[in-house]
């Protein structure tokens, strides 16, 4: 399987981009070339140079430092929001699958259908107007929108697995339903969940950028790619690179996770749900 993976171009490129973004984000936790919140009006809107690799913004803040801290925030949103969606969604989906056709199953799936009826970002905006703006609330909003996605996928995949002969054999060996879910169903649906998780990861990064662009995501002085993009608009004529860098960062990260998901889809071949 590893051989197949390493010969899959989209997987390799996606993995490389993802790892790069990840390493940069980890680096940003410990070190940035400059304090990304330090304001120096005297050095505002500088072009890229040896001291400020990607130049400075309208407050004289170092763009490179902001960008890599932005990567950290983007990944944080992705990890926590997808984590919320995965854990709650998969649990709900598997419970629904075990009681296929029951009231509980119907209930869970109707709620999922209901949330699907709204566009993701609109739902997030709606939730944020209740919770108030901010990074943590944005993560919660995006996480909530991820729950029905994973619930549906987990339910469908679990139903397929539960019709397998080895599930009947496991029951005949005395396994209870929770034991069967943990021991037999979950390991056989992880492939399909991992693929979906990388796609949702890209969507979460995009959603956070969108919310921050609208000013209801990450709040200043905490840097975010979406807000950097918004801020840059005013100075587009004087400093076009200000828009270029966060835009490219968003595109690259989203592309990376999507390609990784695409590659994983082929490598893990979750359609067959088997290795």
């Amino acid at each position, binding site marked *: 399987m590893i051989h197949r993976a390493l010969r899959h171009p989209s997987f390799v490129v996606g993995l490389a981009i993802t790892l790069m973004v990840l390493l940069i984000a980890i680096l940003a936790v410990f070190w940035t070339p400059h304090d990304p919140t330090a304001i120096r009006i005297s050095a505002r809107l500088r072009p890229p140079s040896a001291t400020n690799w990607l130049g400075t913004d309208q407050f004289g803040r170092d763009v490179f430092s902001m960008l890599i801290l932005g990567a950290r925030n983007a990944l944080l949103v992705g990890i926590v929001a997808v984590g919320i969606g995965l854990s709650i969604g998969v649990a709900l989906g598997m419970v629904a699958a075990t009681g296929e056709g029951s009231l509980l199953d119907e209930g869970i799936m109707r709620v999922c259908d209901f949330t699907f009826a709204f566009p993701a970002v609109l739902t997030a905006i709606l939730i944020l107007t209740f919770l108030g703006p901010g990074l943590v609330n944005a993560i919660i909003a995006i996480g909530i929108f991820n729950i029905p996605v994973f619930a549906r996928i987990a339910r469908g995949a679990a139903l397929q697995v539960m019709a397998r002969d*080895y599930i009947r*054999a496991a*029951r005949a060996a005395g396994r209870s339903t929770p034991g069967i879910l943990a021991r037999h169903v979950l390991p056989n649906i992880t492939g399909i969940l991992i693929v979906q998780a990388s796609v949702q990861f890209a969507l979460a990064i995009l959603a956070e950028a969108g919310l921050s662009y609208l000013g209801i995501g990450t709040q200043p002085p905490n840097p975010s790619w979406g807000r950097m993009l918004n801020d840059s608009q005013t100075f587009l004529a004087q400093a076009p690179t200000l828009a270029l860098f966060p835009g490219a960062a968003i595109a690259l990260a989203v592309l990376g996770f999507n390609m990784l998901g695409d590659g994983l889809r082929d490598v893990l071949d979750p359609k067959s749900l088997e290795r």
Partner: protein
Amino acid sequence: MLSVEHLRITFRDLPILRDLSFSIDRGEALGLVGESGSGKSMAALAIMGLLPKGMKASGRVMFEGENLLALDDARLCTYRGRHIGMIFQEPMTALNPVHRIGQQVAETLVLHGLMNQSEALREAERLLERVGIDEPHRRMHSYPHELSGGQRQRVMIAMAMACKPGLLIADEPTSALDVTVQSEILDLLQDLRLQEGMGTLFISHDLAVIAKVARHTLVLYGGAAMETGDTLALLREPRHPYTQGLLAALPHGRTRGTRLQPIPGFVPPAHQLAPGCPFYGRCPRGDSECRMRPPPLTLAHTHAWCFHPGRRA
């Protein structure tokens, strides 16, 4: 040890199994035979408490003094795998593709609290050797897809035997295998039964297979018992027209000079069965009485449920 009494199964008010009774003692093997669709698997699943959704069982399944039909699922889990083992027809798909062979054999022992993990793994290796897996130590680490069908069925047998159950239910355990592998597996099951003293319910559509392994045989058709008795007696001189038909369809049938004759027609679905004898319609001796009333039990060297039992006409 196992005594099935007046077992009935219905699916949306349709009879799947009509009033089936039999018993199996420790160390004894009962063969359950009948064409595909006659209800053999449902009878087995009813004993395990694993009937598909929507099927209802009534009557009694007495196992060591306990009526299994009256137990809830949590109590049944302490019987399944522990006191009653089961193997299925499809060895290619009955093992979980993501877990190693050794682990899958060992986990039944851990599940029922008989051993801790490391003891169970050691026992699993011993079991693999016992069921005739070559290089058991190496095979412990294999995944199911690395094994042939026959080897996988051996692993399934090792899993079902792990807790030394008093009863083994084998539902068409060799029907999906090559003829040579088939007889190896039959020998193994026979050997294990004699050595471990388990009772065995051996299910097959093939009377020739049943003849090799079971002292007693019960012939099932359309969810109803047709004929039962000592396997030899049943093969030598069947009294029921359906058993006679099955026998005539065997490639190596004992009736000299007769050619292979499959029974004309096919097993009717449950909703098309008349209130009388299920075999009515395909039976050469059927008359209006057979159609309207359930046939009576007639006793001779075998027990047959039939209005017109006896020698082949």
